[in-house]
């Protein structure tokens, strides 16, 4: 060590304050030295913790989403298979598009071949020689429900002399249809038909027109729409709305 080096080393030892940046390996770090190191570590730890929290939240929300989707699918399967509303829906609502006018009195009643819910076929032309009362009705319609006992009375009075009454389903909706704008617009199904039949003690055939072909041809725009067809297949009476017993009875009486 030459003289200059020795002097320089002595000077450094005499003035430790100037060595703040270079303590010995065993000396504890000063606050100024330690702070950035601890800060960086705590920042790292904080960042890692936040990252872990966010990851947990993300995984939790994703798992929650999967559970909710699974629940929706499970409930849909259970409800769908239990109720089977579509499988038993009796009509196609999109096919309902009746002509605007009812068929005029004196015109020929279009023939049809429809089935009851139990599968029994009824063909209008097979009933030639007998007067037929045709009612186009809706399960939910209060006027049709009022009309049911009237038609029962018609059956009681005229069926023994060869008259037939046929009610044709003319609306796609079941008994819960809300005419005020509609919350429950479930399609009409077998249980609706059974309910109507039992509640109003309907004895005559109730026919299903799956694509509303007959309903459309007969211009059944409102419920109920009633026609009286004579034994030659000619329309002798046509009216919609609340049709009194006496009007139907008069029409049938004139045919006898």
């Amino acid at each position, binding site marked *: 060590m030459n003289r200059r080096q020795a002097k320089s080393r002595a000077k450094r030892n005499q003035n430790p304050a100037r060595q703040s940046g270079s*303590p010995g390996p065993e000396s504890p770090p000063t606050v100024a030295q330690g702070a950035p*190191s601890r800060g960086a570590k705590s920042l*790292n730890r904080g960042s890692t913790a936040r990252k872990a929290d966010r990851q947990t939240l993300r995984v939790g929300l994703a798992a929650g989403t999967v559970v909710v989707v699974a629940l*929706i699918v499970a409930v849909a399967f259970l*409800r769908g298979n239990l109720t089977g509303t*579509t499988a038993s829906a009796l009509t*196609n609502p999109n096919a309902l598009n009746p002509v605007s006018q009812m068929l005029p009195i004196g015109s020929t009643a279009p023939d049809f071949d429809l089935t009851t819910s139990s599968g029994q076929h009824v063909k209008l032309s097979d009933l030639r020689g007998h007067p037929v009362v045709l009612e186009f009705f809706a399960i939910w319609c209060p006027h049709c429900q009022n009309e049911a006992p009237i038609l029962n009375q018609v059956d009681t009075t005229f069926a023994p002399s060869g008259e037939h009454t046929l009610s044709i389903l003319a609306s796609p909706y079941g008994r819960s249809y809300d005419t005020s704008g509609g919350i429950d*617009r479930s399609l009409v199904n077998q249980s609706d038909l059974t309910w109507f039949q039992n509640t109003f003690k309907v004895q005559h055939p109730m026919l299903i027109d799956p694509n509303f072909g007959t309903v459309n041809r007969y211009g059944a725009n409102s419920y109920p729409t009633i026609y009286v067809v004579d034994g030659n297949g000619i329309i002798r009476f046509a009216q919609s709305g609340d049709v009194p017993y006496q009007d139907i009875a008069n029409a049938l009486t004139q045919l006898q």
Partner: protein
Amino acid sequence: MRRIAPLTARILLGLIFALSAISKLSAPGIFQADVAAYHIVPNLLVAPFALALPWLEAMLALYLLLGLFVRPAAIVAGLLLLIFTIALAINVATGNTAHGCGCLQTSGLLASVPLLSWLFGGLTIGLFDVVRDLVLAGVAAVIFWGDTSALSLDVLLFGERKESEESLAVTPARHPGADRRSISGGWEG
């Protein structure tokens, strides 16, 4: 602009799915009949499908509008729309068009909105419906490939952006030169 297009796409698709879900839930019978009329979903699955789809659409709408899991939501929305497009295309190609689309039930709540009736209504389906759903699938693609950070819960909750900023901020501390102690030890040796 980079963030506006995906945000607009998110809101548009979210609103459409929301309206679709609401209209289907308000007229479940009609929707089931429409699903059945496609003759694509097996009979046994028609009712469960028609019951589940509106709720899944409602979830999709919620996620898209809130910006939660946006990219997965965009994938699901896009796939759904592609499936709808294929179903419509098959029916148009085979001539089975005499039924409603089942997209938005415009006969109920939405009947008074002419634009919606024009876009989604009608008693029959046609090529227009196919093209419309394909375009909407494209809208989902815009969300998937775009910058979805605007007004997004993904950023707020999971801080994807902030995290990247933080990782940049702590980088110098990891640099060997930042640890003065190790340097001082070196000096002393």
